């Protein structure tokens, strides 16, 4: 076997994490991107800046604040404890929530651009045909923005797979729970197990290349005349 069971466990965990984060962000990122694309409210700018923050912030900053916020004395930690959920650091769902923040701009920004590109016109036409706003969104905007959805989902998935600093800060390196592939590779290097590090790194390299190839080579054209 090329990869050890620990490596396979780490890969499976990574895929599960990235998949769940992508689904959650599709659910919450879409209305947010829609609002950012359409709204004329004054706080659209500040909100857009907050969404983009994880692009600029070092993961160590994000991880450090999440560790404090989710800790027993932090606001999030006190909230989850009141709900009887315990503390989030060192849990899989803690990682999910951290990754949702970390990958937020990778979902919202491509979607926002796609929605903005549609413009007002198709939706106005839909409205004259008596489509409700919700109806128009699903039958007009979503098909037109399909390439945006694809790009956003692939980028979000890939970016979560590549996550390292935040996981290291709040994960606690628990096998099968928070030890994702990037951390597993780091562990191999730290333990001077360079062959193991090579194998898993090669798998990650091939995977990342294929994802990006899919993104660049196979980009569907927007549906016309929907």
């Amino acid at each position, binding site marked *: 076997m090329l990869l050890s069971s620990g490596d396979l466990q780490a890969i499976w965990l990574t895929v599960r994490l990235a998949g769940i984060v992508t689904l959650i962000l599709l659910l919450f990122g879409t209305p947010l991107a829609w609002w950012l694309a359409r709204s004329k409210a004054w706080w659209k700018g500040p909100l857009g800046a907050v969404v983009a923050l994880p692009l600029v912030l070092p993961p160590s900053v994000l991880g450090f604040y999440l560790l404090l916020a989710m800790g027993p004395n932090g606001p999030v930690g006190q909230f989850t404890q009141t709900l009887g959920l315990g503390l989030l650091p060192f849990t899989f769902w803690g990682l999910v929530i951290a990754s949702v923040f970390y990958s937020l701009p990778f979902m919202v920004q491509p979607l926002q651009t796609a929605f903005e590109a549609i413009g007002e016109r198709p939706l106005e036409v839909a409205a004259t045909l008596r489509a409700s706003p919700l109806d128009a969104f699903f039958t007009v905007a979503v098909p037109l923005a399909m390439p945006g959805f694809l790009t956003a989902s692939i980028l979000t998935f890939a970016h979560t797979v590549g996550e390292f600093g935040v996981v290291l800060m709040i994960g606690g390196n628990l096998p099968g729970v928070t030890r994702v592939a990037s951390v597993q590779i*780091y562990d191999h290097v730290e333990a001077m197990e360079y062959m193991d590090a090579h194998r898993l790194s090669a798998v990650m390299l091939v995977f990342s290349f294929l994802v990006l190839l899919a993104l660049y080579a196979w980009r569907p054209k927007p549906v016309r005349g929907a």
Partner: protein
Amino acid sequence: MKLSRLMPLLLITLLGNAMQAQAGEVSVAVAANFTGPMEKIAPAFEQATGHKALVAYGTVGKFYAQIKNGAPFEVFVSADDTTPARLEKDGLAEPTSRFTYAIGKLVLWSAKPGLVDDKGEVLKRGGFDRLAIANPKMAVYGAAAAQAMKQLGVDVALEPKLVYGENITQAYQFAATGNAELGFVALSQIFKDGQYAPGSYWLVPPALYPQIRQDAVLLMRGKDNPAATALLTYLKSDAAKQVISAHGYEF
């Protein structure tokens, strides 16, 4: 432009550079647990010798990988004795230069006052959810913690409660932020200038874990750098030893 006016400035600059070159610089890699004392030793070393120590802090495994791949470190202040020995065998360290600059102490610590008793009974009693340790696979303090738990016969029972820091600094961070109620940390992290940090602690008896011998070594790149040899000499001086023992290390 009048060159004559610039001349004095130029001379000063050149002279300054020359003096700096004579004083010299040494690039040194320091294990994370020794951060506290090194932050005091580096300026004192500069004051005493005129040499400047450019210090990088990190994990031993990372430094090993970097040094093996040509990192420009001249002195390595490790957290263990096996990695410097390994560098010697790889021909990357000067064989006769290695010495033990400190012996590390393991301590069980909680940011909560009163949680840790002075016999470490809390490990058997329970009443906590998370216990942070450094990763035993790669950090000496982690390996020491794992060994101590085994000796106490609590390793199996505590296994589900363990969370792993990539190094001892992160184990401390988990405990200091309260995300883990307990943590096995280095004494140097909670004992500074003869004072214990707030919270509660238990000094793990040395019989429970293999001695943590922390070695420093001259790397091949620093072989001909007087500043590098001067730093190793300074680490053995009484002034440095005073700082080191004030941080809870022994010799």
